[in-house]
């Protein structure tokens, strides 16, 4: 089916777009952008493992539980480098607390047999909070430069679009999987948002040249 071409090949391959642009501009990348670069690399590897397990008809939902811990850590570290020093300690505490929550959810609550809807949704809400805080900070701090010339703005926009658009999906994943005949089309939409995010990341890495 054509959707398999899209979900199994095109979307995973789209990971290469920001990775290639990031690699070519690696020397010019500032530390927060390098965090995002490694995050994309990690995401690509996790997605590859997921596809291999699916291909071999193995259970792969547990990967999302583990992936969520690292996803939140990467993105939190990215914003930690953008916010004032007074935010550093709370963010580090948040990373620790959320990781613990994910493990509790994996072991006791959703037990790795179904999507981690509680933790992923909570993660999405917190990440949206980071994005809005960054926008607020930039609206006050940066009025001297064109919005598009700042690579961090593109990264933030990509993160905000993906996690806010995907929030409904994160919330309803288990319900959709159990109650719908063809839930795959939902994943098509989410994958499209992911592609959009990767394009914005690639633009952000490219803007480092200037």
């Amino acid at each position, binding site marked *: 089916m054509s959707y398999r071409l899209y979900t199994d090949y095109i979307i995973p391959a789209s990971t290469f777009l920001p990775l290639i642009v990031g690699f070519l501009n690696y020397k010019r990348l500032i530390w927060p952008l390098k965090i995002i670069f490694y995050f994309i690399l990690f995401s690509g590897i996790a997605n590859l493992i997921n596809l291999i397990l699916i291909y071999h008809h193995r259970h792969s939902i547990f990967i999302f539980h583990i992936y969520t811990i690292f996803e939140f850590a990467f993105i939190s570290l990215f914003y930690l480098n953008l916010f004032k020093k007074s935010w550093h300690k709370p963010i580090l505490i948040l990373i620790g607390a959320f990781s613990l929550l994910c493990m509790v959810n994996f072991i006791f609550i959703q037990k790795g047999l179904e999507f981690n809807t509680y933790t992923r949704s909570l993660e999405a809400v917190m990440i949206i909070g980071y994005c809005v805080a960054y*926008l607020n900070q*930039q*609206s006050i701090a*940066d*009025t*001297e*430069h*064109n*919005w*598009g010339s700042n690579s961090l703005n593109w990264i933030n*926009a990509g993160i*905000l*679009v993906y996690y*806010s*658009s*995907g*929030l*409904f*999906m994160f919330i*309803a994943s288990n*319900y*959709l999987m159990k*109650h*719908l005949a*063809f*839930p795959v*089309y*939902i994943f098509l*939409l*989410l994958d499209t*948002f992911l592609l959009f995010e990767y394009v914005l990341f690639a633009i952000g890495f490219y803007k480092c040249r200037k």
Partner: protein
Amino acid sequence: MQEVTDNVFVLVVLGMAGTFLMVVSFILIYIRNQNKILTQRQQFQRAEIAHQKDLLQAIIESQEAERKRIGQDLHDDVGTALSSLRLTIEMLKPQQIQDNNDKHVKLSKDIIDKVIKDVRNISHNLSPPALSYYGLVAAIEEHCLVINQTGSLEINLYNEAQHLLQDMALPVSVALYRVLEELINNTIKHAYATKSTIKFTAIGEEAIIIEYTDNGKGISSSLINKGMGLQNIESRLTVINAAYKIDTAEGSGFKMTITHTLNK
């Protein structure tokens, strides 16, 4: 209880699509507002710069007008009074051949002659008549002649842009004259130079380049202080939209290149 018949798939898709559109719209509106603020800030800065330039021009023009008035008053009033005084003293005749007063009369006439000469020089320096009547090159030539006669500095003038200089507007001529005057003064006061050169070159019919060089002790580029002299030069060149470049180093003399685009 009535069964819920909503299609959850449709609801979730609508929710995701709606959120996507809302977030993208929010970001686009945010970008537009930020760019609008940036544009307004840039416009304000440009207006501020233009206003500062207008103020500077007004200050320089009023300064020149004042100099001209004082120069003319010195020449017309003080100069005339001194000349009258000299004539009056000339009319004093000694009673006897060996009258001691003759020496005092001669001394008085010498002092008056010196004062008349000094007043004339001050009047000309304040507002050179040649600048208004004959243009920039004539005024500079006159100034260079005076300097050369003192023997403190030899100034050579090369003019390859007469056709452009003769039509130059008076405010521009005055600004360039003052700049060259300041450069010559700096050479005499600080550079310990023996020779300097002023060269006028035309770039087609559009622009003129003025090169001023001296063979003095030069100065390290990092040590060029923005003293009153250089600030004055910078102000005058900014008002007439001329660009300048300084080339100097210790032991290598001094060179300033001024480029001015003529308004047609």
